[in-house]
């Protein structure tokens, strides 16, 4: 039986339980699981402090208010809390940078890693917003709804990811 202080659960069990989160998403909120549009809600809210004109952009206005947008922001904040809780219970809290990056980048320099993480984050959200979804919205949710656009987006995501990953050193 999986215990709360286990370091790892079966990927099939954990994955299936992730899929069950669609029940409250559809029945309580009337939407599918997703993560990346919360970045627009937060970024546009912060930007509105220095550039109130951003609210004139339809895309920003659509993400700035409303229960579903703030539901998703709360969801990703909850993700950080839940991951902390799980790691705390199993004694797997992390510090610094994952050891895999020394292998993948061939350097221990934190500055190199931070720069790459920042660039990766930028591309990730730019791409997710162009495609209108990420691994959660197109992946978990779009594929579970048999949406053709999500199949195409996820195929492209894996293609882009595999190509870029092969430019790094083998881990």
């Amino acid at each position, binding site marked *: 039986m999986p215990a709360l202080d286990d370091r790892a659960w079966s990927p099939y069990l954990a994955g299936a339980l992730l899929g069950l989160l*669609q029940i409250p998403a559809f029945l309580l909120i009337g939407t599918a699981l997703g993560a990346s549009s919360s970045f627009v809600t937060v970024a546009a809210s912060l930007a509105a402090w220095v550039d109130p004109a951003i609210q004139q952009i339809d895309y920003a206005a659509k993400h700035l208010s409303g229960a579903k947008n703030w539901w998703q922001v709360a969801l990703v904040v909850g993700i950080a809390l839940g991951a902390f809780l799980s790691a705390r219970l199993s004694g797997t809290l992390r510090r610094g940078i994952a*050891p895999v990056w020394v292998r993948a980048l061939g350097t221990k320099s934190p500055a190199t890693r931070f720069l790459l993480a920042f660039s990766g984050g930028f591309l990730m959200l730019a*791409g997710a917003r162009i495609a209108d979804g990420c691994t959660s919205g197109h992946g978990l949710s779009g594929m579970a709804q048999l949406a*053709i656009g999500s199949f195409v*987006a996820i195929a492209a995501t894996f293609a882009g990811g595999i190509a870029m990953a092969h430019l790094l050193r083998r881990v």
Partner: protein
Amino acid sequence: MSVTFAVFVGLAMGVVFGFLLEKSRVFEPAVILGQLQLRNFLMLKIFLAGVAAGLVVLGTLVAAGLTGLHPKAAIWSADIVGGLILGAGIALAGACPGTTLAQIGAGYKDAWFTLAGGLLGALTFTYLEPTLRPVLLTGGAGKLTLDALLGVPFPWLAFGAAALIAAGLVALERWRPWREEVGANADGLLPPPDGASGTAPATAPSRA
């Protein structure tokens, strides 16, 4: 639906989401990068199990008349270009948008830079969206789904697809048992591949 209710539900769901991302190990950069280098298949297992469960859940809810679906519109250029850029970003970040937050919760420092880059990426897109819309974000097939395309009721196709995925996962597990992919430190880091370029640390990473 009030914003307060939505935020409360979101927080509660997020805690479960993050807990499962951590327990499944899919938030680990070595799991994500290992998957994209086709060395570690944990991510695919978790992802496909999540899709299969989602198919069963949504097939059931739709058959019971409890909900409609919310598929995204298929816009070929946006899906392909956006997907390629998203994938490249995932490889460099060693994270996807949701798991970035799980990495922060678990304690990885570089994930804060991924988050900052992500916010800037989302903001840049927001400013460019009116310009990009006519070029990249229009056309396509609308909210096209496989069941509509084939003329089969959604629940039956969803259950069938879930069964196919389950069979695929059984085969995947026989080929690559998941316990061997978790790694000694539960971070998905496997022993260095043969012919590695000599930069890999020989010692096991210390427990944080």
